[in-house]
């Protein structure tokens, strides 16, 4: 099954038309907009269009063409280059830019080859019945090891940072607020944490928490700021930079200020108000919330669902109501902070298994069952729950769902699947990891997800059997005490979910899911061809590119910003200290041209900063879109 639907024929046709120049490249698929070529096609197909409608159509097409041209111009002019590259920033590796020969042009990256070579779009998968789940996982996931010299140099870099931080701390007073009259009191904060944030994080602080002044769709506008005293304080320069947005969780491109979702939300806000400021069980319940719950249940393929106002709170406040002190929880190593917080609040015994390792999971389960509850002298546990996420956002890896379901059935444990990132972005119709693997949603006991990532909204949900949801309606902290989702946000979720399911009678939802799958495959393959190390499964839209060193994270983010690309970097303590990474989040709103531009810039930057660590063989053939 996988992600890609077998509609390669339509895409090939459309791109053949593109390279001929008769139709324009598709405009970004934003909220509810139908891409240009389909509009043009449908207009051409319908014979009964009167003549006078052609004129505004042409004008609109001209406008769009001008816009596209402007975009291209905008993207090809760097503001200033912080790190001067040898080629001056404008040499693109694409063959087509340098040669005019038609045969050579067609061979460039991202275009369908004229010879019609067979693309291995469809690697065999378990759902097709060819490979076992384990083999498929190992074929499609890559976690390349760090080269030894890089590891040593990373440690050396950190030692230098620490030494200089200590010297700084000894000699100079930091520009932080201090409490007066507290001599002899125990320090409020952990010493290492404050040291780290003042002397390591502070130096590259300008790469995080950057203010924006537009909606973070496929592009965003960054407010420029400079620091005069090396990161202690910032001031705004007054200029703004328009960047390609590779950092937002905008998988299906619903984060836009225009379109049917935005219009519906606005109408709903006028009709029903902005917030009820009351929990669901008191005054915060409306028919809209009930409708949304029913729609979510249908979307996930289960009996019932319940929605909450905040995604983080869905995990943190519902795990205590589902688990108690006599339960065993087996959770993945790289689970999110919300899950860890919820588990700590619940008081259950937590055992950790190595990330995505089924052998370790089995070992932990067997130990748990054999030795029982040590607090009660070896008696059996009340329940055993396996906690995993659909897509792990820092690693880009996908959970091994078929094997976990098999293990869960063997050892009679419950399964809690946190699909925060994978709902809407995986599966042929966007129903998540469960659909991606072709599993039965009734096998997963508790399906949890958030509306923040793919639906362009806020909030979280839990879906499962009616018994579970009825239990949660009476016993969940978030349902009884926390405020409900505000009406315009519910409307946004409702509209976007209907679009994805295709219930608004357009093709937009399906196209978005397909576009995301194509973007993901293309981007990951191009990155692998370049030779940078990326982690994770080849189908996950979260792409972490490893840079290992702290200084490189800062340098890459700054350089990419000068080239009009906005990305997010992650270092210690969010990741292990050895593995600093740059994380790209792809979106269905990105067009191929934007991705090509981004990939060329990444290629240039990684060559100049030395990020091409990969020792795998690189694919010499150009990669089709």
């Amino acid at each position, binding site marked *: 099954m996988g992600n890609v639907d077998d509609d390669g024929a339509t895409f090939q046709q459309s791109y053949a038309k593109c390279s001929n120049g008769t139709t324009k490249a598709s405009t970004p698929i934003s909220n509810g907009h139908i891409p240009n070529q389909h509009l043009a096609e449908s207009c051409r197909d319908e014979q009964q269009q009167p003549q006078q409608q052609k004129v505004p159509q042409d004008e609109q097409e001209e406008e769009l063409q001008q816009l596209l041209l402007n975009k291209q111009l905008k993207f090809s002019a760097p503001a200033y280059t912080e*790190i*001067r590259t*040898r080629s001056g920033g404008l040499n693109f590796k694409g063959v087509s830019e340098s040669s005019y020969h038609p045969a050579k042009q067609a061979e460039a990256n991202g275009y369908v080859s004229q010879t019609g070579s067979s693309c291995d779009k469809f690697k065999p998968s378990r759902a097709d019945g060819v490979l076992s789940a384990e083999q498929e996982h190992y074929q499609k996931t890559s976690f390349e090891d760090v080269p030894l010299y890089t590891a040593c*140099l990373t440690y*050396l*870099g*950190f030692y*230098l*940072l620490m030494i*200089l931080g200590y010297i*700084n701390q000894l000699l100079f007073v930091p520009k932080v607020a201090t409490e007066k009259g507290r001599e002899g009191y125990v320090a409020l904060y952990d010493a290492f944490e404050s040291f780290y944030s003042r002397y390591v994080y502070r*130096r*590259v602080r300008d790469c995080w928490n950057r203010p924006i002044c537009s909606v973070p769709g496929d592009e965003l506008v960054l407010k420029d700021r400079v620091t005069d005293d*090396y990161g202690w304080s910032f001031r705004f320069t007054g200029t703004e930079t328009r960047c390609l947005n590779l950092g937002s969780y905008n998988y299906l491109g619903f984060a836009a200020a225009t379109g049917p979702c935005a219009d519906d939300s606005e109408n709903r806000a006028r009709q029903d108000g902005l917030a009820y400021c009351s929990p669901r069980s008191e005054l915060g319940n409306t028919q809209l919330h009930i409708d949304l719950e029913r729609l979510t249940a249908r979307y996930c393929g289960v009996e019932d669902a319940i929605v909450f106002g905040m995604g983080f709170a869905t995990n943190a406040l519902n795990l205590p109501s589902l688990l108690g002190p006599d339960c065993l929880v087996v959770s993945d190593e790289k689970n999110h902070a919300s899950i860890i917080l919820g588990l700590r609040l619940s008081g259950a015994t937590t055992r950790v298994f190595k990330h995505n390792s089924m052998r370790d999971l089995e070992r932990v389960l067997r130990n748990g069952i054999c030795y029982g509850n040590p607090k009660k002298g070896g008696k059996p546990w009340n329940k055993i729950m396996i906690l995993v996420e659909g897509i792990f956002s820092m690693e880009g890896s996908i959970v091994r769902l078929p094997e976990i379901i098999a293990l869960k059935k063997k050892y009679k444990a419950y399964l809690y699947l946190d699909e925060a990132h994978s709902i809407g972005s995986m599966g042929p119709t966007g129903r998540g990891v469960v659909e991606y693997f072709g599993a039965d949603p009734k096998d997963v006991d508790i399906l949890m997800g958030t509306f923040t990532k793919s639906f362009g909204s806020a909030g979280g949900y839990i879906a499962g059997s009616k018994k579970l949801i009825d239990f949660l309606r009476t016993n969940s902290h978030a349902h009884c005490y926390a405020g409900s989702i505000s009406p315009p946000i519910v409307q946004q979720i409702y509209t976007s979910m209907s679009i994805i399911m295709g219930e608004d009678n357009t093709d937009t939802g399906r196209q978005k899911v397909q576009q995301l799958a194509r973007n993901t495959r293309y981007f990951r393959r191009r990155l692998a061809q370049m030779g940078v190390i990326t982690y994770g499964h080849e189908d996950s839209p979260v792409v972490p590119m490893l840079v290992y*060193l*702290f*200084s*490189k994270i*800062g*340098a890459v983010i700054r350089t990419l910003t000068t080239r009009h690309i906005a990305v997010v970097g992650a270092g210690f303590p969010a990741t292990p200290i050895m593995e600093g990474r740059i994380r790209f989040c792809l979106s269905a709103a990105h067009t191929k041209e934007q991705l090509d531009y981004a990939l060329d810039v990444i290629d240039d930057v990684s060559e*100049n*900063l*030395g990020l091409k660590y990969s020792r795998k063989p690189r694919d010499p053939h150009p990669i089709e879109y």
Partner: protein
Amino acid sequence: MWNLKDSAAHLYRQYELVTCINMFEPWEKKLINGIFLLMFVLLVFSSCVYLPSYMDTLIEIIRPAAGSSKVDDLTYVPQRISSM
């Protein structure tokens, strides 16, 4: 388009990135560079003073004074016998 200055700049930038020096303030950069330079000079100086024969061999290998090419260095005989 390769020239020495660009190459040297590129190498210095790589050195800065790899040792995290590019994150530091200028006085810290000077301090660290100074310490590294001091250690390097110390290394070279002590190997010249305390191990003259080995240094001579090294120099012979890098830049043969007798004019013989590196190819027939397979069976290498040192030109100068160390005085013990």
